[in-house]
């Protein structure tokens, strides 16, 4: 057997063709971002065939509720010159262009799945809002929001939450995992820290549902005592003891 025969034989196993319900299913050489093979579904008419992705892109996202994705898929499908009905990506074309249709639909479906998986963001808790509500529940009227505190430089810095105790101000400053938030909170806390006002206590609270790196957390700790949100209750107990 020649090398070409060996390669041909290996490729024969890749593109399985099987019959479905009034359609033909073909494994293509494309794979979705998850690694699943793109299977196209072909409905063959007398002169025209319809090639679709058999709902492969929408299934590849792995979302519990995919109903909201249908509109997004339809918009993306039109960019590839395809139509989309009920979440499937499809193209109708003359039978003698079927092979091209298989290649085009498979690649469009793969691209759409990739774009969707990058675009879809699952709702996550709003940890700043959760922190604000937790503080209000715990410290009631002692919590003030959007409080300005003047730092060593003379610049006024805004803090989301400050607990006003009789002789102390406790800053509870939430930070998000992005460079702007980290830099902004770091500068504000450092400037206030440099004033060395013993009546002011500072805490930076970070959302530990996010993947923070060691260096990022080390950097935050330069500005103030850092506290993961899931452990904030312990700190709140210490603050309450001062109350």
């Amino acid at each position, binding site marked *: 057997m020649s090398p070409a025969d060996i390669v041909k034989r290996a490729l024969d196993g890749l593109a*399985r063709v*099987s019959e*479905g*319900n*009034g359609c033909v*299913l073909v*494994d293509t050489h494309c*794979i979705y*971002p*998850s*690694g*699943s*093979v793109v*299977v196209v*579904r072909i409905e063959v008419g007398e002169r025209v065939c319809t090639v679709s992705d*058999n*709902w*492969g892109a*929408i*299934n590849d*996202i*792995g*979302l*519990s*509720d995919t109903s909201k994705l249908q509109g997004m898929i339809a918009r993306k499908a039109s960019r590839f010159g395809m139509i989309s009905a*009920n*979440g*499937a990506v499809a193209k109708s074309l003359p039978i003698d262009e079927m092979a091209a249709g298989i290649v085009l639909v498979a690649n469009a479906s793969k691209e759409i799945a990739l774009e969707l*998986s990058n675009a*879809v*963001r*699952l*709702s*996550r808790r709003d940890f700043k809002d959760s922190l604000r509500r937790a503080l209000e529940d715990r410290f009631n009227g002692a919590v003030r929001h959007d409080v300005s505190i003047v730092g060593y430089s003379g610049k006024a810095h805004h803090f989301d939450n400050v607990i006003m105790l009789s002789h102390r101000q406790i800053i509870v400053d939430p930070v998000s995992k992005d460079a702007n938030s980290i830099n902004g909170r770091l500068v504000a806390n450092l400037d206030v820290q440099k004033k060395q006002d013993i009546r002011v206590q500072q805490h930076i609270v970070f959302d*530990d*549902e*996010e*993947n923070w790196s060691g260096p990022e957390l080390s950097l935050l700790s330069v500005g103030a005592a850092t506290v993961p949100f*899931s452990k904030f209750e312990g700190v709140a107990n210490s603050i309450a003891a001062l109350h």
Partner: protein
Amino acid sequence: MPPASKIQTDIDAFVGAAKTLSGTVDWARGYGDCTVGTYSISIDGAVAGEGAKLNIQVRALVPPNYTIGLYFKDRQIARLDVGDTAHYNQGQLPDGLPSYAGRDHLHSWGLNRQFAAPDKVLKLHLADPLPASIQSFEAAFRHFCGLHNIDQLPTIPTLPAKSDLFT
């Protein structure tokens, strides 16, 4: 190895908890020619929140095609596929995991845990080929449930008869 993120530990806790399937499965039309049955999941006798469910998708093909998926926090966290779609494992693979997982394969949570992120869908990139000993839906269902601590099954569901599938 990086420390576990909150989403990973949340899903670990869900997968690790002893779970039961609630009620009986109701079959409904899914995408295209798919028939879908869904169970809710209980932990300690209470229905688990956060979108916890197990669903079975069946296609009226010969031999039968089906997937069994476990969901939590709006994402699919594990899936078993039989017959329908071949799977390739990409990237740096753990020892012993083949590049080609075949048409009958299992995307377990343990194998895909590393891909969980707080606000992203979970891509089940890695799959093990199903053991050759698993030939029936019942065996596949028991295997999937056992691996993800879904115990005390009221009854093993049976796939709908072909005539009852949506086509």
